[in-house]
């Protein structure tokens, strides 16, 4: 036992510090994410973008809802808020309006942001609240064991769609675009460099930014849909196409055809805060 500990300590001493060490609550590791899960990669890309974007880290806050991705706020060494299911965006709205100097990032999952929290998403985009919303889309409710989500593809199997999903999924970038988001993009966790650069860009965007990140959920989604972890990554590699400024209505997720990735919207629009100052603060 003591030999094993000593060996472990020796090897730990030989390993250099993790490059994101200063942004991680290492006292909370190990994390809850399963082997093969995509959330950690998207989380790491988010932290790298935080370090690279040049913003004062003390002004950066992360807000999450509930679910596997919702645990991200618990691992980041910043002011971080793990709120109620679906309510990360309105909480973040209050945080941002309460102190506009803060840079607020919402990191949560597709179930949290687009089913129970869908109404809040479209309204925050409409208002153009300056927030960066990162949605890890793993096509199902992972934490509760793999139920159908508002993003589950037609005919996909989940524990609540044992015969296959009879509903149609949301096209998230289309929803964001239609709601008025200033910045809209989609990447997969395989496109780590593009994703990191994109998040960095979103942090510096003055307006409502939305990034959908496709990530595998091998335990709950992959297993039931005969998709091995590596196969999902192969789909991300072979069945995607990068097309910036693509028509948002062409962004449905169907890996039998090509899934479009890229930056789709990047426009200037005055924010909720700017407009409030202009119309309501007449001093």
């Amino acid at each position: 036992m003591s030999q094993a500990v000593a060996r472990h300590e020796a090897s730990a001493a030989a390993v250099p510090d993790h490059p994101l060490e200063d942004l991680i609550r290492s006292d909370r590791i190990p994390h809850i994410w399963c082997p093969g899960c995509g959330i950690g990669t998207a989380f790491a890309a988010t932290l790298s973008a935080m370090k690279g974007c040049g913003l004062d880290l003390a002004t950066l806050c992360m807000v999450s809802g509930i679910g596997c991705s919702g645990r991200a706020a618990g691992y980041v060494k910043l002011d971080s808020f793990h709120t109620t299911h679906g309510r990360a965006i309105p909480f973040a709205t209050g945080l941002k309006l309460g102190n506009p100097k803060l840079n607020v990032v919402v990191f949560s999952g597709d179930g949290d942001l687009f089913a129970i929290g869908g109404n809040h998403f479209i309204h925050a985009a409409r208002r153009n609240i300056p927030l960066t919303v990162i949605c890890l889309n793993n096509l199902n409710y992972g934490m509760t064991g793999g139920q159908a989500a508002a993003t589950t593809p037609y005919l996909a199997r989940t524990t609540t769609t044992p015969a296959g999903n009879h509903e149609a999924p949301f096209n998230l970038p289309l929803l964001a675009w239609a709601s008025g988001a200033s910045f809209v993009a989609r990447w997969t966790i395989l496109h780590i460099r593009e994703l990191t650069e994109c998040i960095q860009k979103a942090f510096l965007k003055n307006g409502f930014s939305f990034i959908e990140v496709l990530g595998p959920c091998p335990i709950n989604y992959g297993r039931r849909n005969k998709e091995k972890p590596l196969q999902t990554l192969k789909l991300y590699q072979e069945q995607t196409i990068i097309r910036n400024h693509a028509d948002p209505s062409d962004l449905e997720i169907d890996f039998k055809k090509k899934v479009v990735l890229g930056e789709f919207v990047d426009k200037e629009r005055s924010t909720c805060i700017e407009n409030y100052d202009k119309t309501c603060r007449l001093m």
Partner: protein
Amino acid sequence: MTGDEACAEGALAAGCRFFGGYPITPATEIAEHMSERLPEVGGTFIQMEDEIAAIASVLGAAWAGQKSMTATSGPGFSLMMENIGLAACTETPCVVVNVQRAGPSTGLPTMGAQADMMQARWGSHGDYEIIALAPSSAQEIFYQTITAFNLSERYRTPVFIMTDEIIGHMSEKVVIPAADQIRTEERPKPQGRKDRFLLYKPGPNGVAPMPAAGEGYNVHVTGLTHDEKGYPVMSIEAQEQMMTRIKTKILNNLDDIVITEAHELEDAEIVIVSYGISARTSMAAMQQARAMGLKVGFLRLITVWPFAERQIRELAQRVKAFVTVEINLGQIHLEVTRAAAGQATCHLVGHHGGAIISPDKVIAAIKEVV
């Protein structure tokens, strides 16, 4: 001005600088007044997409360092319950006004009631303590809103103002004192090394100091059961420690929190217990009863939650009966009955909702008890 407007002015005087709202009769005028006044004092008003979002934004603004509030009525109050639980669990100061109307469901939107009293106490899941005040006039709602903010900051807890449609919509004379005559409180701020700071380590009064986001404390705030650092801990011990803190910070400070008003209790044989608009009915009834030579006193609950249990228990030793007057079918009446513990008889003058109770009904009840 109306009670709703006086509430908004009280909030501004208390230092409230964020209001997240959603329109609902009969609380809308609070939001309307705040939308006009907040930008004048450097604050922010936002009309959210629903009451769930309204209370969530209020919690966010509280962690940004602002004194923040929302105002609603029954249906909206129901929608807010989940995040009120988050506020209790994360010890987030905020003020929620419920201008009560008759329920259940959509009920009588334009007509008053006091039937959300138990919802205020137990509306969110789990055990927790809550503070609720019940003003009886437009002038009082002004002052009680200030008290609500002060208590909320002092104890890091959500505080309710349980008013009703009648006070909300009634126009009365309200005197607003000069700013230097108003005592406002700020939440205790942490001191010492930021890296050693514990978000939930209680101070001398059982309440932990609270930093704002952006101040460099790297706080973690979660609705999961958490330790003093704020980190989630899934254990029975952590649950016990957290629950004990949330409860005792209120229960150990009852003398500071529970405000009551005693009228002619010295020789009273029958004591009317009431709050909010029904306190005015009760005051009139007590005066009429005294004029008839009946030994009737009146205990007004200004703080409804936590309940004035000690006061009722002590009175029960020496009075014959309690008559509780409220516009519901016996919510606080059952609390009085519980606290009286069989030492005095307990009677209800209730109402199904939609109107104030006439003093005649109270007199009739007193005569029956005598």
